[in-house]
């Protein structure tokens, strides 16, 4: 999980270079994360300078990169659609990415484990996708940028019938479609 946090900060820093005048809310106290991580040198270096050399950018590629760096899957407890505290940073990173790039769209894919009835599980998966959608919208993402789909138990992330397989399958995936 700390990987996600570090990556989120890295992306925040990249974004700061692109639009340095826009205030970006920090999800964590900055010093602790910067100082403590191995990537700290790179990220704090650019951030501290304030004005980099500038760079060419490609929004679509950045979206892919953000997607990859931030992590795009979050997991849920049994019979729950509550986003875990540890995943809030990841979602904030995506919220920033989306609210600053109105051309970017995401598809939120909700999933359930295989236990119980299939169409009811479609409902449970949708709840998870909607929980993520609500968080993104509260953080400034336009509703028109978000599409949700629930695959219920139809697309398991992990085959097999153990509790850890089930835990891998109770998830929401964030997929950039544009």
């Amino acid at each position, binding site marked *: 999980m700390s990987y996600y946090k570090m990556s989120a900060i890295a992306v925040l820093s990249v974004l700061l270079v692109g639009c340095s005048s826009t205030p970006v809310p920090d999800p964590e106290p900055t010093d602790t994360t910067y100082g403590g991580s191995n990537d700290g040198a790179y990220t704090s270096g650019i951030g501290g300078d304030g004005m980099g050399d500038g760079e060419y950018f490609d929004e679509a590629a950045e979206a892919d990169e953000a997607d990859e760096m931030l992590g795009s899957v979050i997991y849920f407890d049994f019979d729950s659609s509550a986003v875990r505290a540890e995943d809030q940073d990841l979602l904030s990173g995506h919220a920033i990415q989306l609210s600053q790039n109105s051309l970017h769209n995401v598809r939120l894919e909700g999933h359930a484990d295989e236990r119980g009835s299939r169409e*009811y599980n479609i409902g449970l998966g949708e709840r998870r996708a909607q929980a993520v959608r609500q968080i993104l919208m509260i953080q400034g993402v336009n509703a028109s940028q978000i599409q949700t789909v629930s695959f219920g138990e139809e697309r398991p992330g992990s085959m097999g019938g153990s509790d850890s397989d089930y835990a891998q399958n109770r998830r929401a995936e964030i997929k950039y479609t544009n």
Partner: protein
Amino acid sequence: MLKNFTRLLIILIFVTTTAFAELVIDVQGVSQPTPIAIVPFGFEVISPGAPLDISAVIKGDLLRSGRFAPMAENDMLQKPTDGADVDFADWSVLGVEAVVVGKLIQQRGSDAYTLQFQLFDTFRRKQLIGFRMPATRATMRAAAHRAADMIYEKLTGIKGVFGTKVAYVTAEQQPDGRLYSLIVSDQDGENDYTIVESKDPIMSPAWSPDSRQLAYVSFEGSKSSIFVQTLRSGNRFQVSNKPGINGAPAFSPDGRKLLITLGGINGNPDIYVLDIASRQTKRLTTHRAIDTEGAWSPDGRYIYFTSDRSGGPQVYRVSVSGGSPERVTFEGSYNARPRLSPDGTRLAMVHNDRGNFRIAIMNLERKDLLVLSSGQQDESPSFAPNSDILIYATRRGGDGVLETVSADGLIRQKMASGRGDIREPVWSPFERF
């Protein structure tokens, strides 16, 4: 646009495959099945070789029903093909209660046959059925199932379902991902063919009351939509493609409407009635909870559905004209996917039985719940059109397989799995022509 076009190409309609050829691996029947003899049928044919072993089909049907113990051919003292040649003493001495004899007669020089058979009560020495019907090579298997249906009904008083079909979904792991297929086969697994396949999930097949169409949910393009496909032509049309969930289709008894679940952009699943011709929808439930898996009562007056408005999923019932739903199930923390027996007396569901998801059946008058299956992840119960048998999916060695059980829980059939993960079996209505 191009993307949509290539996606369309991926979906192949009408591809023949074999899903489970050796279907039944285990039958647990009633404690005292009726001894019966199906004498090998005679063949009065012009072209050499029998087009189909008729008696083997009838014997297989009766054996799998769990209510009959067909005699081995080697134990038979005589093998008549005409009723006039049946010596009742030869059969009653062996304890055989009923004898079936018959033959297949080919008409001169064409693909036209007559299948005739007779059923006798050996103790009363009386003919119970004498019947002949036309058949071609293509319809011969169906004709044999029809004979088995007539014999079964005469001897048990229960309408036979050997001539009916089953639809189910398979998921196969392939090098480039999973392939989902919707398959229709005879109820014994023969004659299977794929009616649609896709790289994206297919789920929730539902028969039209005339057995000619299937509604199903498809995730083509990574969004759910509902299709109705005509089996004979393979033509299909999309009936619902709204934002969010489009799920759980169920045909009305008159075939003109579909119950569907729509989630909408804010993801609140509720049950709607969709008029197929006009595409107009009417909302039936309005609760914030998950309301889904709608099922019609056979008289078309009530809708049974799953809702977690009380916390966990339970079965509720609402009048088709609307109003406030009443709760139907109270036993246990999880009761979902209600299905009414075609005679309207019983409700099948997925029930959490001490941590295991199993098929249970409730008598709607007495309200008592009977757990019928013994797996851990049993799902998708579907009644045979005679209300006497259910088919459902269970797990064996990691894969989904099909089983049937009689509504009293006494007779079980395990079906072999030919490929991949088999799920969501739905039994057809009685064929209508």
